[in-house]
């Protein structure tokens, strides 16, 4: 926490990037106030209008305002990606900690499963899982959780194994500390920074994969103003209405750039190895 505060005070890159992330969040929160139109209301009379003063990013096949949809899309994309990364983080880290701390049977089961998941391309399994379960945002998130938790589990496990050998943990065990107490007050604080950094740098990648699944039709379903889905819908009219695919893509791109840069800056601020 202290590092974070220091970073905010002294690290210029982290300041700028945090500000931009905040801006994105504000856009998502205040989307209803910022948008001139209702993102879901169709007005067939206004269909396929090119970008203009009235409709900054044009309108889609149902006459819905693209600018409003993209601002609302920030709500969908940010919420879903943050929930997704949090879920993966919690699932992966706790499984990894359990595997590393208790070892034995739990370790074998968790790590062999993770070996299996890691030894082939995740995206194809994500597509299969999301597709088989049926296209919905929740199913897409389940699919991505299934293919991504292993990374966190491995990282957490290897760190726990290292920390377990340190004197202060031994001392806590000798003093009769219960496993739960040792985990929470001695081990977790030591592994959290690196886990958080990993999660933060994953936000951008996860956002692209979620958008990719939505683009294929295995994520959000119409009429949600989700960016990947908007690209999918815009693709059908991309000859006559190129703005329908230019702007949602740009929105994804900018958001991913901001989160990737923010993740890098956060790493610089938090990573204890960088200080020495």
């Amino acid at each position, binding site marked *: 926490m202290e590092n974070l505060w220091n970073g905010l005070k002294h690290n210029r890159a982290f300041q700028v990037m945090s500000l931009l992330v905040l801006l994105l969040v504000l856009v998502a929160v205040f989307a209803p106030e910022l948008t001139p139109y209702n993102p879901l209301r169709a007005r067939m009379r206004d269909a396929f209008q090119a970008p203009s003063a009235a409709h900054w990013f044009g309108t889609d096949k149902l006459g819905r305002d693209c600018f409003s949809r993209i601002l609302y899309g920030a709500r969908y994309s940010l919420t879903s990606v943050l929930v997704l990364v949090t879920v993966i983080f919690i699932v992966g880290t706790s499984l990894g900690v359990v595997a590393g701390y208790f070892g034995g049977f739990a370790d074998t089961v968790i790590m062999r499963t993770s070996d*299996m998941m890691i030894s082939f*391309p995740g995206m*194809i399994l994500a597509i299969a*899982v999301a597709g088989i379960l049926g296209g919905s945002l929740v199913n897409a998130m389940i699919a991505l959780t299934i293919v991504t938790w292993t990374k966190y589990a491995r990282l957490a496990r290897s760190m726990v194994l290292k920390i377990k050998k340190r004197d202060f943990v031994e001392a806590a065990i000798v003093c009769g500390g219960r496993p739960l107490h040792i985990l929470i007050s001695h081990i977790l604080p030591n592994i959290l920074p690196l886990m958080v950094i990993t999660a933060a740098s994953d936000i951008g990648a996860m956002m692209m994969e979620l958008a*990719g699944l939505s683009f294929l039709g295995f994520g959000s379903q119409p009429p949600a103003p989700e960016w990947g889905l908007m690209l999918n819908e815009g693709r059908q009219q*991309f000859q006559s209405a190129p703005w329908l*695919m*230019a702007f949602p893509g740009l929105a994804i*791109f900018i958001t991913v750039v901001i989160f990737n840069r923010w993740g890098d800056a956060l790493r610089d601020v938090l990573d204890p190895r960088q200080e020495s």
Partner: protein
Amino acid sequence: MRLCTGRVAIVHMNADAPIFVQKRESAHFLSQDELAPPAATFTQIIAESVAAARFFFERGWPKVSWKRLVRRLIQIALVLLGISFITFALVMLSPGDPVRQMIAGNEDIIVSQQELDALRAELGLDKPFIFQYFGWLGRALRGNLGFSYTVKAPVIEQLMISLVPTLYLSLAATVFMLAVSLPLGVYSAVKQNSLFDWFTSSITFMGISIPNFWMGLMLLWTFGLKLKWLPIVGGSMSFRNIIMPALTLGIVMASKYTRQVRAAVLEELHQDYVTGARARGMTERYILWKEVLPNAMLPLITLLGLSFGSLLGGSAVVEIVFSWPGLGYLAVESIIYRDFQLVQGIVLWIALMYMVINLAVDISYTALDPRLRKAGH
């Protein structure tokens, strides 16, 4: 390829004295021709590959690797078993009735219950899950992955057909990636912190943040629609059709790989032997081409294998954008039409390819690294 770390050359350099190079075993004079890097390197790469190949045939496989190979093969089999179980279980959990879908497609046709039950019994779908799974497994082990009702062909046959375009596309993307990444990565490592380095790192950063399907669409719009240089509608595997999908995949991959090349070369450049070589007055060109690059190649080969493997699964979205008739396209189509026999086949097939490629990379790694080569016998 020469990947010898042990060959430390000692060079005494006077303005006009001949350059004297002493190897560990023997000493000989290097002519100016041998020092001229770019021309010599290519022939040397070939010579070294030939040497590596000869090494295999003459001495056979290092003993340790046999054990490892068998272990890896068993591991592959286990992973395939696990994956097949997961996908099978998922299909069971999935909403909708595949039997109804098989008869009626996506339309609302009324089908009688007797008809559904009959087909269900015929396909063995009325049995408990575990029976179905072992039934499938038994057939799969005999090379029968089932029959796809959407393409009206045995699954395995369709997999073979669809593999070709995906491999072709992956290969094209990889060639593009190498052609771009190697020069860019090496040069920006050599000129670390220069304007060029900064420029490359900004471009590659953008490259890894662009969703590949969006880049595909933009390329399609620019080169297909506005400039009319390339065809918009895919379908056939002609050279003109492959350019854009290969570019789309290649740009994203090249962005990643350039960064990896840069990192690998930088790491070698910071090694002591480079400082030593500089102190002995060897030219930067010589150090780079004869010492640094061969050593940096090893990690890069592994990464190359990994990125080629990930293309097999990762190209699905791009294949859809460009209607490229490969495995990814087939996967998405078969999921949409709930042709689960085919879905299962594709997932297993891609997993198998990926693991075989990784295995091949590991093997070539053992063969190319002189340290591992020595450990083998």
